[in-house]
């Protein structure tokens, strides 16, 4: 995380605690986009994400006095957001998710690749993000169960380090690495199948 962000957070925390005028506005300005998006990627519904975001900010304002400061302010807010969203999911019927196992690479008993490989990496190596591919990545990510989705979103979409993600989710770093790797393997396989289908047409 950049040093600038740190300074912003320090000042924000200070003014929130003092109840300084404009502190809540600053909190909203810095975080409502991030929190809403994180909530969206976990809850996948705009109205749920909006309610969750409200709850997150209320909790932040209410608990800012008890924030210990032994983690960074933003990771504390993310943690509140993840917990709030997971609580919401708990009450609901699970939305459709795919089984990640079906997309893990398959090996023979000797540990060799069991299926032929198609190299599509050259096709997507252009500088800019292929818009359609971006859309597919988002779609495939949304189909992951939340166990993987949350880790994937925090690490690969929010760009947080494994240590930060571990702290936010209350998991160990090896657990984060393993989930993240599986999510990427899954995504590689999904993209392979998708691109293969496209070229077969």
């Amino acid at each position, binding site marked *: 995380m950049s040093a600038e962000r740190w300074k912003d957070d320090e000042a924000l925390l200070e003014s929130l605690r003092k109840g300084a005028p404009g502190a809540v506005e600053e909190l*909203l300005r810095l975080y409502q986009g991030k929190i809403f998006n994180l909530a969206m990627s976990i809850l996948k519904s705009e109205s749920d994400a909006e309610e969750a975001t409200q709850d997150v900010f*209320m909790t932040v304002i209410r608990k800012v006095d008890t924030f210990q400061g032994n983690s960074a302010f933003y990771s504390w807010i993310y943690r509140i957001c993840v917990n709030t969203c997971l609580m919401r999911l708990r009450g609901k019927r699970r939305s459709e998710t795919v089984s990640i196992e079906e997309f893990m690479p398959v090996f023979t008993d000797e540990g060799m690749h069991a299926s032929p*490989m198609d190299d599509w990496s050259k096709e997507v190596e252009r500088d800019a993000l292929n818009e359609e591919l971006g859309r597919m990545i988002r779609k495939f990510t949304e189909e992951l169960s939340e166990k993987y989705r949350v880790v994937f979103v925090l690490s690969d979409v929010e760009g947080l380090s494994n240590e930060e993600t571990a702290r936010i989710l209350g998991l160990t770093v090896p657990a984060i690495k393993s989930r*993240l790797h599986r999510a990427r393997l899954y995504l*590689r396989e999904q*993209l392979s199948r998708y691109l293969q289908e496209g070229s077969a047409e």
Partner: protein
Amino acid sequence: MNCKELAYMLADYCNGSMDLRLREELDGHLSRCEPCTVFTKTFRATCEETRKLRESIEYAIPAEVRERLDVFVRAAALKYPEKMREYRDQIERDLREMVTDLVGAAVAGNLSSATALHVESHCAACPECSGYFEALRKTGTPQAGDIPEDIRSHLIALMQALPPGEEFFLA
């Protein structure tokens, strides 16, 4: 190293955090194995596309959602300190009243057994409170405002130490 092991070590390999010896072993395998080479290339491309996606994401929040959030959170944030103060004042008043009742019940011998035990063990350690209760037995129950502040604060702490929902007095 076989293909399976390689597939599960790719993360460290791709982000450059793998130690040199292992990396050489992986490179060796890759130079001999076509499927793994393709697997690694497409894995890298997947990570790369995800990175590009991350950079292209704007934190889009629909304007009307942003507006509703602003209004709601700001209004609630304004009300919150006021509400907290009211709430704390109320608790404070309740506790002061309860201390008066507690002292009355103690003198009359009407404390619940758990509370009586707590009061007893507190008095054993606190000369001020035991002296106060001793004196009360002669003079009778005091008026609400007559309890000295330090005794009052001891008894408030004592009541707060009891489990929530505890009945202080016998019915």
